[in-house]
């Protein structure tokens, strides 16, 4: 996983709340067995509209998406994270995220940044204005900066460290393999098995 410390880039304002996973990428695109190449399905239903934010030249190359509350509610499809990353996004800013989407984003190194609604609205106005500011997402400082403004965002220490080091979760867990084996020895004998071990 690519390390994330500080990122500055073009931000795109997506003025919608409750953008569910089916809007981020429809099920039709989930038939693929690869982990990349999902950008063509991103926000599929909206991409034909010339007015859609990602079709506006001023947001070309956007790497930060600023969107409404409850972004990523719905399905567990990690393809939603992959599609956003394939499009070039490094961070998503919203007041609140669906739990599974947020987990998936953290696993894959797409930073979910929770900012208050007022901050999101300030960013929307600024990004739609005549001189949209670049947006900086500083994971080290847990801050978002744009123009003269700075906002702190919450993220637990462990997730921050993992992202900054670009570490693989499975590798981290396997450091505790002895604990896993010890736990397995305590499991009740009646627990079901799908087949012989």
């Amino acid at each position, binding site marked *: 996983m690519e390390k994330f410390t500080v990122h500055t880039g073009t931000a795109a304002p997506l003025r919608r709340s409750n953008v569910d996973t089916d809007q981020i990428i*429809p*099920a039709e695109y*989930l038939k693929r*067995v690869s982990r990349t190449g999902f950008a063509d399905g991103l926000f599929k239903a909206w991409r034909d509209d010339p007015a859609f934010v990602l079709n506006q030249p001023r947001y070309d190359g956007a790497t930060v998406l600023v969107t409404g509350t409850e972004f990523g509610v*719905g*399905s567990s499809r990690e393809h939603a994270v992959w599609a956003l990353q394939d499009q070039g996004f490094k961070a998503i800013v919203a007041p609140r995220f669906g739990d599974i989407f947020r*987990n998936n984003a953290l*696993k894959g190194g797409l930073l979910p940044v929770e900012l208050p609604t007022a901050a999101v609205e300030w960013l929307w106005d600024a990004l739609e204005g005549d001189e949209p500011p670049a947006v900086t997402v500083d994971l080290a400082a847990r801050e978002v900066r744009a123009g003269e403004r700075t906002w702190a965002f919450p993220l637990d220490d462990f997730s921050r460290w993992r992202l900054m080091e670009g570490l693989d979760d*499975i590798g*981290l867990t396997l450091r505790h393999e002895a604990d896993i084996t010890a736990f397995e020895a305590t499991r009740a004998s009646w627990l079901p098995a799908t087949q012989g071990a």
Partner: protein
Amino acid sequence: MPDKPRTLAEKLWDAHLVRAGGDEPDLLYIDLHLIHEVTSPQAFDGLRAAGRAVRRTDLTIATEDHNTPTDNLFTIADPISRTQIETLRKNCAEFGVRLHPLGDDEQGVVHVVGPQLGLTQPGMTVVCGDSHTSTHGAFGALAFGIGTSEVEHVLATQTLPQRRPKTMAVTVNGVLPEGVSAKDLILAVIARAGTGGGIGHVVEYRGEAIRALSMEGRMTVCNMSIEWGAKAGLIAPDETTFAYLEGRQHAPEGAAWDAAVEYWKTLPTDEGAEFDAEIVIDAAELTPFVTWGTNPGQGVPLGAEVPDPASFTDPVARGAAERALEYMDLAPGTKMRDVGVDVVFVGSCTNGRIEDLRGAAAVLKGRKVADGVRMMIVPGSARVRAQAESEGLHEVFIAAGADWRFAGCSMCLGMNPDKLAPGARSASTSNRNFEGRQGPGGRTHLVSPQVAAATAVAGRFASPADLDK
């Protein structure tokens, strides 16, 4: 000193802690990992790339459901879907995972298969790369959906690092009125709480109306926990749970059964345990329910009207309602009973079990699906289909003019040939009414199997009681 009273959720969490404390999240052991074709291929690729094996093939089981056709058991016409199914078959063979493929007696929607095999039991942790894994919480198991990276993590380690969630109680007091189902109950809960109301919480459904539900009804309620953002939904195990499990293929037997039941009886929330939040609902006030918008929280009683967005004080909810009505092509003030439908879908992990099919059949018996309406009935598993046929339910469906199909996810999610046409309107027993969920441009209204069947007969939204008027 007596132990601090704990909730069911806390007991389940504590019983699966491989390690806790320090700077890291808790590490939870996973008792059952369910696999399907959509969210697993990249996880198996990850194992291969790292040279890792599946740690516990004996706690892992796979089936094919999302991509499968429901008009036949042999031909997957779409080459991309076929490749995904074949990839699952190759991965299961290579890594030694038990698979119930298309055409197998135990094939079906993953959340129908686990419980009917008796693999989902109280006190367990259950995960699957599918958000409706919350279904299994109906047994008093901690069950939640995960992404593909986490699927790979569980395959490799049989554990997941997790932050301890908050707890919430949804207490449903009293008795559900005649004609009001588990589906109506959960749709009403979501309309009350909003689609984000449960974020960060494990929810325990409790109270007299919940205790009175069958296991099928409990699964319907827990299934839709994710639709209001909850991490998981739970219902404490009781005699209804034990009666459902006893004698199932993977349920314990003899002395092991007695030991298991003894443990399961220790799981319900202790007297005096505290939840971080609580919602209280009076069952007597509930009626058949239907959604009007594009998220599962946008619902009203069947007897109500399409709401006016101007009536929402919250600007976010108002904006969402405006967009939803435009997409759904509905005018404020329209009576839901005056809205006509093109397609009726009965099935899915929410309402594709035998009791759901019985409920639809009871309404359809001796009646006909209205002209111009297409009704599809899709059993949740091959076994549900066989059970329905042994009871003669298929004859009722066919005589009514409905389409009786094979098991799969079908029109729940627009990933297989069963899709809603652009602009078409459905009454659907599934779980999501998102824009385009059942097919691009399709308009979905979520209902119970009973309301779906009555709507098929009337050609517009109706309850079974309306048909007798």
